[in-house]
């Protein structure tokens, strides 16, 4: 018994995010496939400065993380906060402002990267003035979310909202502090920090962009859409409380594991490794809670490809949050650091967990915002293409990463290095080609999704037209 009729919610702000998110997913994975292909076939750099790998790589990372992931987080937050608080969004105007500012910031970033304008910080490449636009959007988004919760007509704040709230605070902190820079002009700025300190701040940002933007936020997505979609309550309420607070506390510490055996202090490295290992417990808490929520509805997997996306997403989440602590152990990191294993790990999280839970949430929302999806068959095709693409990608990078690590450290019986660096580069070619094919499959999957969305929108429009004709003739 919802106290509010659905007409009272503002769904337009959700709809635009769903459309933009899916479009950005296609663009971002296309960029990714392009740069992956450049590594397999370097001629694709085309001797063109604007398309060369070094300038183009941030195009991929920023589009998939902040454009695709960002719009999923914006749209789903607007959707969930209204529905779980039984109240309309606090300010539709501010929501639109946040949505358009985010788009303006992203477009500026994507236009300036090929020109070589970069802060030189991974996943935080956009120059200082673009940072300000994006930060402004983020603050408006967070404020609107918090004020909507304040206006809620329910007594309790739903668990999914806690995760969004944690993400909003932490992402604000890390984005602002990592972005501290002294501008030289519009196209160039120097980080406020140097050397060791800059490295620490950067990975405090880098890993918490993963930990909060891509994990806490997406756990919020999971905590709403999984129970809603399978029609069962969360498996363990107590587990969600425990793993929420522990994930909020632990993630923050682990950035240092990106700097094992570098020139940062030893105690920081060990602390980063220790906290990373501890992090497996809250991570698996979330994974188990999500999976067990589906328990009892397994029969639906036969007919519901959206639920397939959810279960595979959670399986990948469990897998990559096991792999992460493993790789943060110093002796494992000694092998894995600087290799493609890291890239494989990131993508088992990104393609497996983030993309698949997002895709599930987006398909679920499409049905509730417009009408039942145009073709469930195509959703199923998308599921299989995406899964095969992701698995190809990840296994290629595991194999190449471990091979690289072993080749670099191999000594012969006389105490000489066995391989030159160039030998290891040559050995990567088949894996880079395989990775590019995996990425291409994921891109095709997003193409199918966009097609399915467009057809659904057309059908919804046609039905609306018929309805209004019918009303007029009465």
């Amino acid at each position: 018994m919802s106290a509010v009729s659905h007409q009272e919610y503002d769904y337009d702000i959700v709809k635009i995010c769903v459309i933009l998110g899916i479009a950005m997913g296609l663009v971002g994975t296309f960029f990714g496939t392009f740069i992956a292909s450049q590594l397999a076939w370097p001629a694709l750099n085309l001797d063109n400065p604007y398309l060369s790998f070094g300038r183009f790589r941030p195009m991929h990372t920023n589009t998939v993380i902040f454009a695709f992931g960002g719009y999923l987080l914006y749209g789903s937050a607007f959707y969930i906060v209204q529905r779980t608080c039984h109240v309309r969004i606090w300010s539709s105007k501010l929501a639109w402002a946040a949505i358009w500012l985010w788009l303006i910031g992203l477009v500026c970033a994507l236009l300036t990267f090929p020109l070589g304008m970069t802060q030189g910080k991974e996943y935080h490449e956009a120059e200082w003035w673009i940072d300000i636009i994006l930060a402004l959007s983020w603050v408006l988004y967070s404020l609107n979310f918090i004020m909507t919760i304040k206006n809620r007509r329910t007594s309790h704040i739903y668990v999914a909202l806690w995760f969004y709230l944690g993400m909003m605070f932490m992402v604000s902190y890390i984005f602002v502090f990592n972005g501290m820079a002294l501008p030289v002009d519009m196209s160039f700025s120097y980080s406020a920090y140097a050397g060791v300190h800059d490295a620490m701040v950067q990975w405090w940002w880098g890993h918490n962009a993963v930990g909060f933007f891509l994990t806490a936020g997406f756990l919020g997505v999971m905590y709403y859409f999984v129970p809603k979609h399978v029609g069962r309550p969360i498996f363990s309420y107590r587990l969600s409380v425990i793993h929420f607070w522990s994930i909020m506390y632990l993630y923050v510490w682990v950035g240092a594991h990106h700097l094992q055996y570098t020139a940062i202090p030893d105690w920081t490295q060990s602390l980063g490794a220790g906290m990373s290992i501890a992090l497996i417990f809250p991570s698996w808490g979330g994974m188990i809670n999500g999976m067990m929520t589906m328990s009892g509805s397994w029969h639906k997997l036969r007919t519901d490809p959206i639920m397939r996306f959810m279960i595979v997403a959670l399986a990948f989440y469990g897998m990559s949050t096991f792999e992460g602590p493993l790789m943060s152990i110093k002796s494992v990191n000694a092998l894995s650091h600087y290799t493609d294993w890291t890239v494989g790990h990131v993508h088992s999280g990104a393609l497996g967990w983030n993309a698949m839970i997002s895709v599930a949430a987006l398909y679920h929302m499409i049905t509730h915002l417009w009408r039942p999806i145009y073709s469930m068959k195509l959703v199923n095709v998308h599921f299989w293409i995406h899964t095969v693409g992701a698995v190809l990608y990840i296994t290629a990078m595991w194999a190449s990463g471990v091979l690289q690590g072993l080749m670099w450290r191999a000594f012969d019986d006389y105490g000489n290095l066995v391989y030159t660096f160039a030998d290891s580069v040559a050995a990567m070619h088949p894996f880079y080609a395989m990775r590019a094919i995996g990425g291409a499959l994921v891109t095709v999957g997003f193409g199918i999704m966009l097609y399915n969305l467009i057809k659904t929108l057309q059908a919804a429009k046609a039905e609306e037209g018929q309805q209004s004709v019918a009303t007029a003739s009465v």
Partner: protein
Amino acid sequence: MSDHKFKLSIPHDNIERNLGLLATFVALLVAVGGIVEIVPPYYLDDAEPAVEGVRPYTPLELEGYAIYRKEGCYLCHSQMIRPFRDEKERYGHFSLAAESRYDHNYVWGSKRTGPDLARVGTKYTDAWHVQHLIQPTSVVPESVMPNYVWLETNVLDTSKTRARMEALRTLGVPYEQGDIDNWEADLKAQAAADDGAGEDDLRARYERNTWVNKNGDVEQWTDSFKPTPLNVRAFDADASDVTEMDALVAYLQSRGNMVHFEEGVDYYHDKFGQPYRK
């Protein structure tokens, strides 16, 4: 009711019903880890032990660094050698924290699609670098690096050099007024675009044992320490102009040989602590 008395329970229900409480707890909790890990290294002396020889970049090297960042070199090349036997064999002595103390931003990187560059300086000739940057496969057939064909034809944009040095001085890099005022002469002198007229002045400014940082503190290396000589020449073999190639090669050739490592010295324990007087 009496059951409740002995039950260890956190009143989570209150938190879930009170937005202010929830938001405050979350906002405080997520701040802890970062503060504990990031702030102390600024105050602990052994987090970035000082070492003799590390100097700020010359104007030409500074422009080279900007190109390194602009072209995204750091995405495929690390500049952080780890203390392992294979890395020592392949790249040289492990990197010290102090070696990147003037790098706003740090360029340690996170991935080695290509090899580490922390000590690539003087390992190859200028001609090798120029050839390699224009067409990597012509010297390393296995390479997957893009051809940087435009570096040699692009004349270096020096409109920001002075502003860059001033910005870095604001951030604490010990450039003196003379270093900044003479940026153009120094830049041309290092690329040998001035018929050798400014070379002595350039060397006097950057091959020295005393630096005054922004706090006015004098950093004085031991008198016997001989700073590594600057590389002064037409890096792209063409002294008629200063190109992006000149700047990038000058930067690369400066990598990693400012600190003089002595055989048999353990730089973690023996050397740190008293390398120079303040």
